[in-house]
């Protein structure tokens, strides 16, 4: 993979991780309590649907990213990265872990300085 492509893939992954991560937190900590206790379905419906569709994009981007930075093939690590987009807060933890363990070394090996900052640090 060319360094430019690698950087693009990593950036797409970080954007999608941040987006789905925020949506799932809103859904679980605002939408579902509102639905359960106030019978207000607005957030659960719209944020839920939006997260559902963006998660499809997240899964594709995250899978391509795991291949690009050589997360071991057929490993639980790949599964965890893909599932992280559905579990509150885990997205951010996993993004940090993947950055440290795979993305930064892969960027360094491709001769790309990891000059962009991760979404969360």
């Amino acid at each position: 993979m060319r360094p430019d492509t690698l950087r693009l893939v990593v950036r797409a992954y970080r954007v999608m991780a941040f987006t789905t991560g925020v949506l799932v937190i809103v859904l679980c900590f605002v939408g579902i309590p509102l639905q359960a206790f106030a019978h207000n379905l607005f957030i659960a419906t719209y944020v839920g649907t939006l997260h559902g569709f963006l998660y499809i994009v997240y899964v594709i981007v995250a899978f391509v990213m795991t291949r690009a930075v050589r997360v071991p093939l057929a490993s639980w690590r790949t599964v965890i990265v893909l599932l992280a987009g559905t579990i509150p807060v885990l997205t951010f933890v996993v993004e940090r872990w993947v950055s440290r363990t795979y993305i930064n070394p892969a960027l360094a090996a491709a001769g790309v300085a990891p000059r962009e900052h991760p979404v969360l640090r």
Partner: protein
Amino acid sequence: MSSVAPRSRWRFVISPRWLAWHAFTILAVVGMLWLGDWQLRRAEAGNALSWAYTFEWPVFAVFGIVFWAKTIRDEAKPRQAAGGEATAPGGESGLSGLPATAGQRAATGGDEDEHDPELDAYNAYLSRLHKQVRGHGRAHGLR
């Protein structure tokens, strides 16, 4: 290097590790289709939100199959093809100048110009270690 009889490169698909992955894939795909069916029943019962999920679960089931197939294909690829990206020769950090060990050279057939996946992995490992210890000991005036 002893000459081993050329085994099929697809042999790994019947290894215990991969049989477990096949089982996991089947379970996951069946489970996702079942969830899609459940959402369809909920949607037909009048839950409008379930229509979106009705179409989503089969999509995830397809993803499961595609990722499984792609991973098998990648695993079957010869190792040399996996690390053959052309980066600017020597244009990176000083780490790329590390000489390969005799074992590594023998393993890659002594081709020095070829980008060595083992050396790349080693360099990635070094830079990872470097990142991990960067800033350590600063509080003690060591750096």
